[in-house]
């Protein structure tokens, strides 16, 4: 059904664009640690439920654009996205059967892994590492996962849960 798949691509593109906008929405300097990794969460959703539609090349390009957008060294977000994408590909069959909150816990782990690579690159760029703060985005990402997941389910008419 070409019409429906076209529709799907539009939804993917729109959700990614929205995530990109949210990822640079200005927050007070001290609040920035609490910003969820919107782009990563949306990418994880599409990797879980449309693993054949979203390619690694797309993830790379998305990551590079996010690097450009946020002004961080090229490759930082692509690295995280590709690593997380690979884990998603390995695990999506199990994760689909998880309850929403178990999926959240899984998202916490995935975003935490991406944060590790982010911090690694930032450390190479000469910025001091923070303490446990780098896990805050993982926590908030896990918290918005049910919201994001249900909303995208509705958009794609997937009645899964």
């Amino acid at each position: 059904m070409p019409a429906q798949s076209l529709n799907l691509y539009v939804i993917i593109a729109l959700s990614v664009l929205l995530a990109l906008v949210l990822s640079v929405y200005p927050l007070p300097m001290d609040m920035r640690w609490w910003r969820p990794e919107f782009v990563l969460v949306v990418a994880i959703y599409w990797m879980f439920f449309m693993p054949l539609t979203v390619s690694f090349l797309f993830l790379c390009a998305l990551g590079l654009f996010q690097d450009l957008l946020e002004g961080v060294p090229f490759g930082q977000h692509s690295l995280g996205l590709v690593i997380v994408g690979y884990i998603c590909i390995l695990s999506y069959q199990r994760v689909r059967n998880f309850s929403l909150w178990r999926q959240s816990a899984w998202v916490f782990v995935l975003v935490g892994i991406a944060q590790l690579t982010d911090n690694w690159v930032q450390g190479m760029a000469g910025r001091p590492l923070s303490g446990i703060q780098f896990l805050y985005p993982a926590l908030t990402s896990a918290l918005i996962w049910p919201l994001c997941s249900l909303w995208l389910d509705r958009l794609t008419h997937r009645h899964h849960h």
Partner: protein
Amino acid sequence: MMVLVVVGLYTDKLEPLREKLAQLVTPFYQITNVPTRVNDWRKDTFVSQVDLKMENEALKTELLIHQRKLQQLASLAAENVRLRQLLNASQMLQDTVLIAELIGVSPNPLSHKVIINRGTKDGAFKGQPVLDAFGLMGQVIEVSENSSTVLLISDSTHAIPVQVNRNGVRAIAEGTGDLNSLSLRHVSANTDIRAGDLLVSSGLGDRFPVGYPVAEVLQVVRDPGKAFLTVIAKPMARLDRSRHLLLVFENRDQASVPGALNVTISSSSSISSSSSSASSQGGAQ
């Protein structure tokens, strides 16, 4: 991907690419700035006459105060010019500035960068100093056509040459990654510096113009076990609040005039001989 990271970090081969692509990014920051603009518009449009009158009154009072200060300034400026002529120093030229508006904040919590709405089209250039109404904020590090990125002085990769306004002691103020503190690097233990001192840009290094306030010293810790003082200073500029910034176009030949320092400190009674050149003496223990 790893190769990309390493190439991007340790060489500047990717810089031209980033500059070219930076234009794609500007619309995102413009979109996220829309709520602020709507709010500004609302504030400007739906405002009562009483409020406007009060604001007008306050502004008039402020203007009067500034005008009084300006009267003194005129004579001081004339005096300054005369003294400079006596010293054969080149004249201090007025810097021209361009007002820029903040349109975004870097989403990366480890870096202190902001995005402003001026780019190459308005003459902004890499390395350009940026001020707000209260002091030095930082410098432009990336320019695209319609926007540019400003690295704030509190960023942990930023350092700025400063001098103590009271006696001319020179130092380097480094960002700490904390918005409210800078630390002075390699200040020897016998340096005359104390809490409350104003640090102004020294103009050394030809990057920042001379004499703009940078920070105020908050505390000085003399630890006998350490070779250097621990000096913590608070930036004067409101790094996280100012929405209107000034881009400085300075006249290049006035930068780092050696005579300028002498004029400002000649009236001070307690001139310390220790400057950063003396810091090699290290701890006096």
